[in-house]
């Protein structure tokens, strides 16, 4: 399709140090804290009580409603506590603390779940605990349950992984090719997109491109598409446009333009569940950052406190000033090292805090750099002004609801304006006025 626009973006340094590091398995932690809300939507409801013995893969949190996801134990051991904790995003949610016995005894229900109909497939996806592992954490089952399935043209498997440092998706494609291929075949079998399934990878990941080409050499409905390395290539609307030329209208879903985007690791979750019966209980996590002694990719049980991962990687070479869950562009700065690994954790990074003077905020000089990197073609400086004036009409006109918070504007800003913050707070204001 003819593309009239070129989606803009920024080119932060890649820092994919761990691109070729095989995944190492973390020793079983003594204690895990498994939150009931590791996805967007409604939290899972705990179904185990303190003192109860649980096994690996056992259901400990039941889904509540359609937009929800079940939670399984990542270790075998004794439930110590069910408590309310503060999520790093500010909300409160329940979590289950389990003391591990180190035996990793698998639950007897962990057996293959062969599927033969779409409904069985969707049920299996739901039961696997799969959520969008690209970051958003939207439960996979309701996402795949699109109404107009006969109008689905493309399924895009997102392996762009455009954030600096993070290589866990790359490692999944390289070292867990089997489950990626299985996942894609399941999608083809039950969803049958009219055009094709496209594996989308940025051109700075030759090993992943090669692994995927090899894995899909006999599947002619699959295309491995090499995309230029440009942040935020992996943003779903950006990806849909760059691969299919289709523009997702404001407020519409991707399915409305015949597309579905799923992260490449997400599909391994349900394919592993269907093939081997193992739900989402562990994650490959990139542990990196300027002050991490031996950056690695680590397979860690969900609920592991992140300090254990850093310790496994040789600890810090300097006093950490900032710890991130996720990449440096969109990751969340964590308040302490006790925060557990959750389903959507793809990386944890440690750094000293940049010299405060270096990132000193100065006035906007109207250089226009932010306008020229915004993938959505929004106008961040105008939004910032509208935010300071609390001008809700202007905010609506400027389409702040369309901002994907990729952070390109704030990254490029020479005056170091906190543009993402202004946009997030503006969204909050709009949301409150709507009520």
């Amino acid at each position: 399709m003819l593309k009239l626009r070129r989606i803009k973006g920024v080119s932060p340094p890649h820092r994919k140090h761990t691109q070729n590091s095989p995944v190492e398995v973390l020793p079983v932690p003594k204690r895990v804290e498994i939150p009931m809300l590791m996805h967007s939507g409604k939290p899972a409801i705990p179904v185990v009580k303190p003192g109860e013995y649980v096994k690996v893969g056992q259901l400990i949190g039941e889904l509540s409603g359609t937009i929800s996801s079940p939670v399984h134990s990542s270790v075998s051991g004794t439930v110590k506590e069910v408590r309310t904790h503060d999520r790093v995003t500010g909300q409160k949610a329940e979590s289950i603390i389990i003391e591990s016995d180190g035996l990793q005894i698998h639950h007897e229900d962990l057996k293959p779940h062969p599927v033969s109909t779409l409904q069985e497939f969707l049920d299996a996806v739901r039961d696997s605990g799969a959520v969008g592992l690209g970051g958003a954490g939207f439960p996979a089952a309701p996402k795949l349950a699109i109404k107009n399935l006969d109008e689905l043209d493309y399924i895009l498997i997102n392996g762009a992984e455009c954030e600096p440092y993070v290589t866990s998706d790359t490692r999944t494609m390289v070292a867990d090719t089997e489950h990626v291929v299985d996942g894609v075949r399941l999608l083809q079998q039950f969803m049958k997109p009219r055009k094709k399934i496209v594996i989308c990878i940025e051109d700075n990941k030759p090993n992943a491109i090669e692994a995927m080409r090899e894995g899909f050499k006999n599947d002619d409905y699959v295309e491995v598409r090499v995309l230029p390395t440009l942040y935020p290539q992996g943003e779903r609307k950006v990806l849909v446009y760059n691969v299919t030329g289709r523009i997702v209208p404001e407020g519409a879903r991707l399915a409305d333009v015949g597309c579905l985007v799923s992260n490449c690791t997400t599909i391994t979750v349900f394919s592993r569940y269907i093939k081997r019966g193992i739900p989402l209980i562990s994650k490959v996590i990139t542990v990196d950052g300027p002050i991490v002694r031996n950056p690695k990719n680590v397979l860690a049980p969900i609920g592991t406190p992140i300090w254990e991962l850093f310790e496994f990687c040789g600890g810090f070479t300097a006093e950490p000033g900032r710890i991130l869950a996720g990449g440096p562009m969109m990751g969340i700065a964590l308040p302490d090292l006790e925060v557990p690994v959750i389903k959507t954790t793809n990386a944890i990074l440690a750094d000293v805090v940049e010299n405060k003077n270096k990132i000193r905020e100065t006035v906007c000089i109207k250089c226009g750099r932010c306008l020229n990197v915004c993938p959505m073609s929004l106008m961040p400086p105008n939004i910032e002004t509208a935010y300071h004036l609390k001008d809700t009409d202007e905010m609506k006109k400027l389409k702040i609801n369309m901002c994907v918070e990729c952070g390109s504007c704030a990254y490029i800003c020479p005056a170091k304006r906190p543009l993402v913050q202004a946009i997030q707070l503006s969204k909050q204001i709009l949301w409150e006025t709507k009520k």
Partner: protein
Amino acid sequence: MSNLTVSVSPHIHHKATTSRIMLDVLIALIPAFITAIIVFGARAAVVTSVCVISCILCEWLYEKITKRPNTITDYSACITGVLLAFNLPVTIPLWQAVFGSAIAIILVKQLFGGLGKNFANPAITARIVMFLAFSVTMTNWYSPYETTSIWLYPIDGVAGATPLALIKRDELEALPSLWNMFLGVRGGSLGETGNLALLIGGIYLMLRKVITWHTPLTYILVVVAFSALIGQDPLYHMFAGGLFLGAIFMATDYVTTPQTNLGRFVFGLGAGLLTVIFRVYSSYPEGVSFAILLMNILTPYINKFTRTRPLGAVKDD
């Protein structure tokens, strides 16, 4: 107790900072500065220094008095000083240069809120004020190489008109060769003559991604095309006045020009047309400053009409 910083994403930033950008502009002005010294003598350096020092002092003093944060380290006042000096004849009495600097920094920049808030280019506006207030000394042009001996006091040298004034008076035979005009060996404001040097500076700024090509290229091409259309010599219009200085360094000032590339294109288009109109039909030989000032005034409107179209945005009713 945790000592971790919790901040808003993104957690990394591009290395460009406001002061680094301003420093790049200063670096880009060096070739033109050297040309000015070669062509007009050491007094070019004296005038430039006076303007720079007065601009910095004015900024520091104003911020001290109004108890605002000190911003002289962002180099923006320094750039205003250099650009103002480049817009003055080398013979300008130094007290007038100081006066102009005060107009630029205090009246045009600080009274509107300082860096980022002023709507008009400080150097250009100050030049226009000086041009109207000191019309004799501001048009006291000297021929190249004739002012090497003057340092602090203007002396009677060989007066020489600018090429644009010669065109205006129809004294075409007195015009310097195109090659000399390109190199900067001609009468005029001390920093405007070195077209080659200004061009080198402009290319540096584009390579450093400080400015985009949209405004300068459109501006220069429109001047060439429009002057040719109305029967003027386009090459002389390109090299004879302050077009390169204006198009590369003044019409690309972030604060006072549009932010989108489309807006920058419109700015260049308007400035180009206005420049030729002023040069050919007004009673002044030069029109670059007036054109840029007028386009500065139009900039908020250009910004308004060149807003970006968000990807997939649905029109509001």
